[in-house]
């Protein structure tokens, strides 16, 4: 009987997927960048044990790490949509939730998920720097900020890099879940041509290949960066 696999159609779907792959990359990169910014702040707050804030942020991280991304996306989506409508009705605005571009909700939801993971990576990297380094920096008269910027962060970065890379890959993969709130990303784009002829297998394989390529490229870039950082560190030591 032979395997009923339409390879030409797979390439058609792949073209669609590539055309929309920028949406997927945007969905991963925007939360990633905001996650690094917020995540560093959160990691520092937790490392310096700021009293109430540190506890609250720990709670945030336990909740995000303990619940599925799928639920986080859906809860934020419904909370924003329903909350916005109530708010708009309350203050007599003419715009409604259906006017919001859903990609912003996807950004917010993925950032909520990504920030927790990224801040844990950064916290782990900061904790991996030896205590003596902080003490040595203080003992030569550096302020806390100077010590962080000149001594601690440069040492923490190479440790954090592989973990941040896997955080970014995690975000690329998690972004496939935005199909639930009907954002057209790479995967949905690949499925559009399949909706007329039911060749879903070809479409999903096309999407998988494009995701795979994106993630391999991210891994390679991270690997190159790691090597550069390593080389620079050796230069400093010599």
């Amino acid at each position: 009987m032979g395997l009923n696999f339409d390879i030409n159609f797979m390439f058609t779907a792949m073209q669609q997927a590539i055309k929309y792959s920028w949406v997927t990359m945007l969905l991963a990169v925007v939360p990633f960048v905001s996650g690094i910014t917020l995540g560093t702040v959160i990691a520092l707050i937790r490392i310096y044990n700021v009293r109430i804030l540190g506890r609250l942020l720990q709670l945030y991280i336990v909740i995000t790490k303990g619940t599925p991304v799928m639920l986080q996306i859906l809860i934020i989506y419904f909370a924003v949509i329903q909350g916005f409508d109530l708010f708009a009705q309350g203050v007599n605005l003419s715009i409604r939730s259906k006017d919001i571009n859903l990609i912003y909700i996807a950004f917010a939801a993925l950032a909520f998920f990504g920030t927790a993971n990224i801040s844990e990576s950064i916290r782990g990297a900061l904790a991996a720097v030896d205590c003596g380094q902080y003490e040595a920096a203080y003992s030569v008269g550096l302020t806390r900020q100077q010590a962080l910027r000149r001594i601690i962060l440069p040492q923490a970065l190479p440790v954090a890099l592989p973990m941040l890379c896997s955080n970014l890959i995690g975000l690329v993969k998690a972004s496939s879940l935005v199909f639930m709130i009907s954002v057209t990303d790479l995967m949905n784009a690949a499925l559009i041509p399949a909706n007329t002829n039911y060749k879903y297998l070809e479409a999903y394989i096309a999407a998988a290949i494009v995701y795979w390529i994106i993630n391999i490229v991210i891994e390679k870039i991270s690997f190159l960066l790691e090597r550069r950082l390593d080389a620079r560190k050796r230069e400093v030591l010599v």
Partner: protein
Amino acid sequence: MGEFFDARLVCEYFPQLLSRLPITLLLVAAATVIGLAVGTVLALFRLYKIPVFNQVAIFYISFMRGTPILVQMFVIYYGLPAVLMTIGININRWDRLIFVILTYGLNLGAFLAEIIRAAVAGVPVGQTEAAYSVGMTRMQTFFRIVAPQALLAAMPSMGINIVGLLQDSSIAFALGIIDVMGKARSIGASTYHTLEAYVGAAIIFLVISLLLEKGCSIIEKRLSMKIIGDRG
């Protein structure tokens, strides 16, 4: 849509959501068993660098780690019956849950393979040499000296991956599985209190994840007591 959020409804939906918990747990348990088996075999291919199998394992692990599990699920759901049809096996009537369990098991296997490989490779060579020097065979060395130490080293990462599997299981509803997540969705669709249903599901997932983590750390402690405990 009168009220934004009614906390009482969350409690009201709890029993309905909990009634679907066995499906979620079955999925996680079955996938963990498959994942351990697949992961061990792949790790052995990689460790002993068996030609061809080693390359296949690298390819497989890279694919499973580089693509979303959602896509993998559909590839297996549409692909496996098509492939088996060519050799005359019809599995179109199989329960969808089987495809989901298979996907999650195969996916977990790729992640566990890397963990197991790193753990076994991380046992110092001196341990193996010491075992040989007291006259142990290769098998004895592996099962009595290397494997227990590797298991101990692998436990924390394995625990993290199994918790991750629990959370990924929430995507199974996309194939129409009525687990905790699927039930939350159907409650949301029939009552329009979507937010409350999802928050209820989130609480269940949170509690189960914390319990799983606790369980893993207890097993880890027990194991380390058993393996290296008598050293003090």
